């Protein structure tokens, strides 16, 4: 343990690392040693969930929050703040609405209105140091479970907490454990599903990178409850940093006796294997995931038998999402009553969302179940930037739906989102402004699902492809009357006749955009226009003769020589030569190039 009074916490999540936070750490350490400051320790932490404003540097105990820090700022942070106690105001986070500088972590609206249970340790501890986790009572829940509770009592506690699976489907976790506990079989398996495949969701990655020991603790407790001695963490290979941190945590936990043989001196032994996913979205489905661990193509199979009775290598198996398992130690420590007091009647606890897209504060948001979309988007998220209007919010990734402004006051929980035609999913929440074309969004998601369809069920394999072709035609201005009806018809068939959730939910983005934004489909099909000016085939570029100053920048940059005009005279674009590359639109300093 260090005797330091103050800590400099430097985020080392994927986002901040890509913005050179390791170099910032090195520069700060160098400066501290140059100035001979003794009472400060410098720590690398995991993700704070506010990657957009990264790299993030936090000074504790005062809780000063610096955002968008650069290597060249290191010297000033050390000399001004650490040596002379004068925080560097120009590095404070600025409120996107008022532009006020906000010095303290706790006052930033993005964090202030969150309730962090799953993300409780993210950004506050060094994920590569087990000591940091032990200092905040890490592995105490495991100790309590192994020394004071029977598996039945653990299952009972989780059941009465009301915890439901955070992977998307929301199945009660305690019940899932009980099925597996009661299943006959000597060999049982406990799997953590960290194959976060939804495009636009990154909370599991952040947790693995920032708090791997909480996950391991939850996994061992779950293993004890169901009677398994072997665990697997199935994690995406696209997350190299997360994979690395989990490996480090495994070694440390084993050294301390929290994993391996006779854990904490009891009869219970548990080993954990890490399996890297090889890039198949469908492996997020539990039977597909198990096939992948077995070394086969990750194609889902019919259920029953359910994994609780016949899972990995036909043995009883439980599969839980990262967020579910990370919640388990807190429930054990604080009790089921504490947990079940948070959230709504049917959806207990908190939900984590990856709030992204056209939003001022983009990042990881954890709120109590039942919080409204408006609170998440406009309060925590700070609203839509650049003076644009809100158009839609997409939840649940490729399996979810797009909801319009009329749903903003709906609470967020499993039941409400399902009733609206979307799903909770694993927590992607993509906000879209007025410039987003909803037909293109439907096309985008279907392009994703048809690529990821495993090919087993014909309606999913061929149906999504045919639907995609129709959507592609519509976005190119070649839509026909009856296309929308055909899409709805095919969607129903695919939903009804696909084996797994991928096919059953693949049409959701199409169906919800048709339901809520039908006028956009009609505009594409009947008027051959894209109201959002997003589909390239359906708009052209023009020069506003009033606004054009004749600077010639567009003419100089046009790769097609499609722009003509004398210097200081308004220019014009020849539509026959224009390839709509948008260079003129990007370079015009007067906003004179317009989409029409």
């Amino acid at each position, binding site marked *: 343990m260090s005797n330091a009074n103050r800590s400099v916490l430097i985020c080392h999540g994927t986002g901040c690392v890509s913005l050179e936070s390791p170099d910032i750490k090195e520069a700060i350490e160098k400066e501290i040693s140059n100035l001979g400051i003794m009472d400060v320790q410098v720590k690398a932490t995991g993700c704070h969930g506010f990657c957009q404003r*990264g790299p993030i540097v936090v000074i504790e105990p005062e809780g000063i929050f610096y955002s968008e820090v650069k290597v060249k700022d290191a010297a000033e942070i050390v000399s001004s703040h650490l040596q002379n106690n004068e925080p560097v105001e120009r590095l404070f986070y600025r409120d996107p609405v008022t532009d006020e500088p906000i010095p303290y972590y706790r006052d930033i609206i993005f964090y202030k209105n969150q309730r962090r249970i799953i993300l409780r340790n993210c950004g506050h501890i060094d994920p590569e140091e087990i000591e940091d986790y032990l200092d905040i009572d890490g592995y105490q829940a495991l100790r309590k479970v192994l020394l004071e509770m029977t598996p039945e009592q653990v299952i009972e506690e989780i059941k009465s907490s009301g915890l439901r699976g955070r992977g998307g489907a929301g199945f009660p976790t305690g019940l899932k454990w009980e099925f597996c506990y009661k299943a006959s079989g000597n060999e049982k398996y406990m799997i953590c599903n960290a194959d976060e495949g939804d495009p636009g969701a990154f909370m599991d990655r952040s947790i693995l990178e920032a708090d791997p020991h909480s996950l391991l603790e939850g996994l061992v407790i779950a293993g004890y409850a169901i009677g398994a001695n072997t665990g697997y963490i199935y994690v995406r290979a696209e997350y190299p940093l997360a994979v690395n941190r989990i490996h480090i945590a495994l070694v440390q936990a084993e050294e301390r006796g929290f994993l391996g043989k006779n854990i904490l001196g009891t009869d219970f032994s548990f080993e954990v294997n890490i399996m890297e996913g090889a890039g198949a979205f469908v492996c997020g489905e539990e039977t597909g995931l198990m096939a992948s661990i077995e070394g086969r193509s990750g194609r889902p199979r019919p259920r029953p038998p359910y994994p609780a009775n016949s899972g990995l290598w036909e043995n009883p198996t439980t599969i839980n999402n990262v967020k579910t398992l990370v919640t388990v130690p807190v429930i054990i420590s604080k009790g089921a009553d504490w947990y079940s007091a948070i959230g709504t009647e049917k959806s207990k606890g908190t939900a984590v969302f990856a709030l992204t897209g056209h939003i001022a504060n983009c990042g990881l948001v954890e709120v109590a179940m039942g919080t409204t979309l408006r609170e998440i988007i406009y309060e925590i998220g700070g609203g839509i930037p650049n003076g644009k209007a809100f158009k839609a919010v997409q939840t649940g990734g490729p399996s979810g739906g797009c909801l319009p402004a009329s749903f903003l006051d709906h609470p967020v929980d499993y039941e409400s989102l399902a009733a609206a035609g979307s799903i909770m999913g694993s927590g992607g929440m993509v906000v879209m402004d007025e410039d987003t074309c909803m037909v293109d969004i439907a096309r985008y998601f279907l392009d994703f699902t048809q690529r990821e369809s495993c090919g087993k069920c014909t309606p999913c394999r061929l149906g999504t492809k045919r639907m995609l072709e129709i959507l592609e035609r519509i976005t190119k201005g070649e839509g026909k009357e009856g296309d929308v009806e055909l899409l709805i018809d095919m969607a129903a068939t695919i939903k009804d006749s696909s084996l797994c959730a991928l096919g059953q939910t693949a049409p959701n983005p199409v169906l919800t955009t048709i339901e809520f934004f039908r006028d956009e489909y009609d505009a594409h099909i009947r008027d051959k226009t894209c109201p959002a000016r997003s589909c390239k085939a359906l708009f052209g570029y023009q020069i506003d003769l009033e606004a054009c100053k004749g600077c010639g920048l567009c003419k100089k940059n046009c790769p097609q020589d499609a722009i003509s005009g004398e210097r200081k005279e308004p220019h014009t674009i020849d539509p026959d030569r224009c390839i709509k590359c948008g260079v003129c639109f990007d370079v015009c300093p007067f906003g004179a190039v317009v989409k029409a």
Partner: protein
Amino acid sequence: MEKRLETIFSSHEGRQGELIPILQQVQEKFGYLSQKAMFEIAEFTGAPESQVYSVATFYTQFRFTPIGKNHIMVCRGTACHVKGAPIILEELEKQLGIKEGEVTPDMKFSLETVACIGACGLAPNMVINRRTYGHLTKQRVSEIISDLRSKEEEIKNEQC
């Protein structure tokens, strides 16, 4: 058998459950899965070659042709898409003179799109040789590529 393959096989028993990790390690070492490597993997695991191919072609991670020295992966996650990933891809294709899935004739650059890399807060993103580049614009893409090109030139000059 190639020494590097032997080294990888020596840490495995050849069980079916090890197939995907073996494929991953071989690709990591060689950059892709050659016909010869696939044959050796089938021999080692005792599985028919058809089965090894069936598994390997199911997963998008595996590739069967060599990649360029600088391997560019453009994220096509939702956040990147709504923030202009298609424009970034178009710019890269223009700069490099190749399409998605292709390699430049000098083998210096290859380009592919990948499912979400989970750095949505920095959208739009790309990864080059394991490094993530966020907050991309056409301008930034052009700078990054010309930086990489001049690095390649330097290496070439040093070798001369």
